[in-house]
Structures are given as C-alpha cells and as structure tokens.
C-alpha cells in the first residue's frame, strides 16, 4: 500500500480528494443549515450541461460549467426569494431541463467522447497537475470567502430575515453563498462527477449535524469528516480497484449511518416546558 503513495498520480489524486472533500464539506455546512440541498443538486446537473456544450462547441469546459452553474443557482435563489413558486418544483424543472440539455448536447456530438463521461462519473485518479492548480485556486477563493463572511453566513443560515433586520446585508450574503455552492460543485465535477458531487456536500455536514449542537463544532466536524472520507475513499478505490467516486460517497454514507446510531440528539430528550 505504501508504494502506491510514491506514484505521482496517486499523490495528485490524494491532494485533489483532500481539497475537494474539505471544500465540499465546508460549503455543505451552510447548504445543510440554510436548506439548499436541492438547489445544489440541480446546480451539479446544470454544470454538467455546460461541460457537454463546451465539448460540442470546442469551448473551455470549466468556464461553461461555471457559467451554467452560476445561472442556475442565481435563478434558484431568485425564485426562492420571490416565493411565487414552490422551490422543489422550480428546481425540479431546472434540474431536468439542464439534464435534457446535457443529453441533447452529447447526442449532437458526432463521436463518442469519453472525457464528457469523466465529468458525469468523475475520476479523481486521472487528475492532471493543471486541474490540481485550478482546484487549488478556486478552493482558496471559496474558503477565503467563507472565512471572511463566516459570521454573516451563519446568521443568514439561522434566520435570514432576522439578519437583514439587524443590519447584515443578508440578500447579498445569500447570493454569495449560492455563488460559492456553484463554484464548489464545478471544482469537484472532475473528481467525483456530476451525479455524486452533491453527496460530498451534504453528507459530511449532515453527519456533523447529528453529533453536536454548536455551530463552530459542527463546522470543524464536517470539515474533518469530509477530508478523511475523501482521502480514505481514494485509497480504498486504488487498493480495491473500484471507481473512486462511489468509494468516497459510500464510505461517507456509512459514516453518516453510524452518526445517526450514535447521535446524542436522539438519546437526549428536550427539557420539559417552564
């Protein structure tokens, strides 16, 4: 097992997994608390549609993925704010429409393109040094924004109207959060794929949610669970020769079920009234 670690590709994929795992689990804290799970899942499919269009037209895939992802989250956020349509309906429509576009774009391609499918299913073991640099760069942007605006992000996740009322620019922070979700999804697309990326956003934070009643503790737990599960998943996938995306996600799911069983929240009863 140790000689695996001497390979360049293995070092790259472990580094990518750690960064993507950390990034997803950190953004996931706010996604779970603010109740944006469905929005993010829709974004992943929209970003994939962007990738498919890029390959069809010969444009840069990452750029189009970001563009499609951002437009989708902003529309979702706008619909949520307006409250004129139920969010699950509007996202459901966006979700399937973008997926239809992706399938259409792939169908229009004259030849089979394996790289496109790489974005759908992900393969962290094939991460190139250049992709690693892009992941690193965007990770710095996203983590930097979260650190810079953490108190406002926590506040809007807890109670957006209250935050607005007490002078926090809550709407702008909400759209910042949506933007960070889109960037995170796009960064993670190549490593875990459009279908599974959202598990990496949701599961670590949901696992941490079971284990603590403090916002700061929740964030650290989520980050640790995300990084450890991603890195362990990649190692498992290399050792057992199984695809990396499912290895990471299934391992995280296993940890999640353990957290439910061990959750102090299930065991503790609320203090009775008075």
């Amino acid at each position: 097992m140790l000689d695996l670690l001497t390979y360049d590709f293995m070092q790259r994929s472990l580094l990518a997994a750690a960064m993507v795992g950390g990034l997803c689990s950190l953004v996931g804290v706010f996604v779970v608390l603010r109740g944006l799970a469905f929005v993010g899942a829709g974004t992943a499919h929209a970003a994939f549609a962007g990738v498919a269009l890029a390959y069809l037209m010969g444009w840069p895939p990452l750029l189009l993925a970001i563009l499609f992802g951002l437009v989708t989250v902003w529309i979702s956020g706008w619909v949520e704010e307006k409250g004129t349509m139920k969010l699950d309906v509007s996202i459901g429509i966006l979700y399937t429409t973008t997926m239809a576009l992706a399938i259409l774009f792939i169908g229009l391609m004259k030849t089979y393109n394996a790289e496109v499918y790489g974005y759908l299913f992900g393969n962290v073991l094939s991460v190139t040094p250049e992709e690693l640099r892009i992941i690193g760069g965007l990770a710095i942007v996203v983590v930097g924004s979260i650190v810079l605006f953490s108190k406002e992000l926590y506040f809007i996740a807890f109670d957006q109207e209250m935050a607005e009322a007490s002078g926090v620019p809550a709407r702008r922070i909400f759209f910042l959060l949506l933007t960070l979700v889109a960037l995170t999804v796009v960064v993670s697309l190549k490593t875990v794929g459009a279908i599974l990326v959202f598990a990496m956003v949701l599961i670590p934070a949901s696992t941490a949610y079971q284990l603590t009643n403090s916002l700061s503790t929740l964030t650290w737990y989520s980050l640790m669970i995300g990084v450890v599960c991603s890195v362990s998943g990649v190692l498992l996938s290399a050792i057992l020769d199984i695809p990396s995306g499912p290895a990471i996600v299934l391992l995280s799911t296993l940890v999640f079920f353990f957290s439910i069983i061990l959750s102090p929240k299930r065991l503790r009863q609320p203090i009775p009234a008075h």
Partner: protein
Amino acid sequence: MPSHVSASSQPIIRFDHASFGFTGVIALKDLTLTIAAGEFVGVIGPNGSGKTTLCRAVLGLMAPVEGHLHIFDCACDELRCHHRAKIGYLPQKGVVDRNFPVTVLETVMMGRYGAMGLFRRPGTSDRAIAMESLAHVGMERHKDSALGHLSGGQQQRVFIARALAQQPQVLLLDEPTTGLDITTQHNVIELIEHLHQELGLTVLLVTHDINMIRTRVDRLVLLKTRLYAAGPPADVLKAEILREVYGKDLVITEKDLIIVEDYHHHHH
C-alpha cells in the same frame, strides 16, 4: 406601573401618512404616529390588522408605498446598517427551527454581527456584551446549552438577549408571549417591563393579549389596516371602540377582562 414620558422626549419613530403593502393590497393605510424615546407602547388589533406589517416597516424591511417613515431622523429607504442595529427585534415564535445546532452564546453573539459590520471578527468586547445581555435575561448559566434543548420561555429570553446584544435603543417584540404557558407569559412580560425601566429602552410590543399589557404600557396603538386609536390604555380600551374593531368576536367580562374570541380558540 407605567413610567412617565416627559413632554420633551424626542420622537424616534415617525410615521407620516404612511401606507404599506404591495400593489393592490394595502396592509396598513395612512398611518400617522409618533413614538418618542423611552416610551412603552403596545400595538394591538385583530388578525391581519397590519401589526406585523408595522414591525417590518420599523425594521426597515418594508418601505412605505405612500407617505413617509422616519426612524432616528432617517428616511426609511435610506436606513443604513448602523441604524438598523439600534432596533433590537424579537420575531414571532416558531420562525426558528428548534433543532438548529446552535448554542445559547452563539445565538446571542449573532446580535453583534449587524452592529460590527462586515470583515470584522467578534472580539472579547463583543463577547462581554453578549454575556451581559444574557445576564440581563437571567440566562448566563445556560450559555453553552443547545438552544433546542431549552423550554419555550427560556428560548424567548435568549432571543431577547440577542436583541439586547445589538445595544439597541428600541426593543421591538412581535407576540413575545404566544405559545407560552400563563406563568411563563407573565415572567416574559415582567422581564420586558424591567428592561424598559432598567435600560431606558423604548419598547414597541405587538400582541393580541390586551389584558396582559394594559396595565404596563404608556400607550396603546389599536390597528385594523389603519390606525383606529392611540393613547393611554384607558382612552383606547373603550367598549364602543373595541366593538367597532373586533365586532362580535369581543367579550368584555364583568371583571373588565377583554376577551377576543378568535384568539380564544387559538389558545385552548
């Protein structure tokens, strides 16, 4: 006993023929009302009378569609962050998710965030203010407890502490006693009265429970999509005015208790 407001008290909230709502649906029409610094004002009225709209307007979440609203001598649509922080707000219960993973101290610290502004990290002084706010509501022992593990009355105290952590001039409370048992209701109202006197806070208390506040407030404001009456409780709580506003839902008992039927159903 209601505290007395001197004639020289300066107005801090001033509605001037202000209407609020959306196109076609006016929730509150042609409101002219001045609230002076240090007053304890109760806002009453039936369901859908515009009480919550009044709150949202004072919070700066809603600009008047007609007329003007001045808060701290600032036109509402120009209300800046540091002005908003001067209004501590207790939202209606049930807005907050009971299972949200947050501690009492983390909740109260959020009261500092608006006043601090962007890019600043909470420091020791913010923490000290939060602890002091918790002490004001008698909850400092529970600072590390999970918010979701507290009783309804304790949670209200924590949310009042969060409002206090803004170091506000005005405390705006939207139905602070709803969903609490009778003893806890009295405790919460007494706490609010105490904060009004101790900290010299201007208090705007929105409630359906007229009997709970009638002996404690300086002034009552009676709304039903417009301002029906405003003044000392004795002047506002006249049978003919109340009957006009509440209609057949109103029962006044021999002991002079005012019972409003639709709320009665709500509670029991």
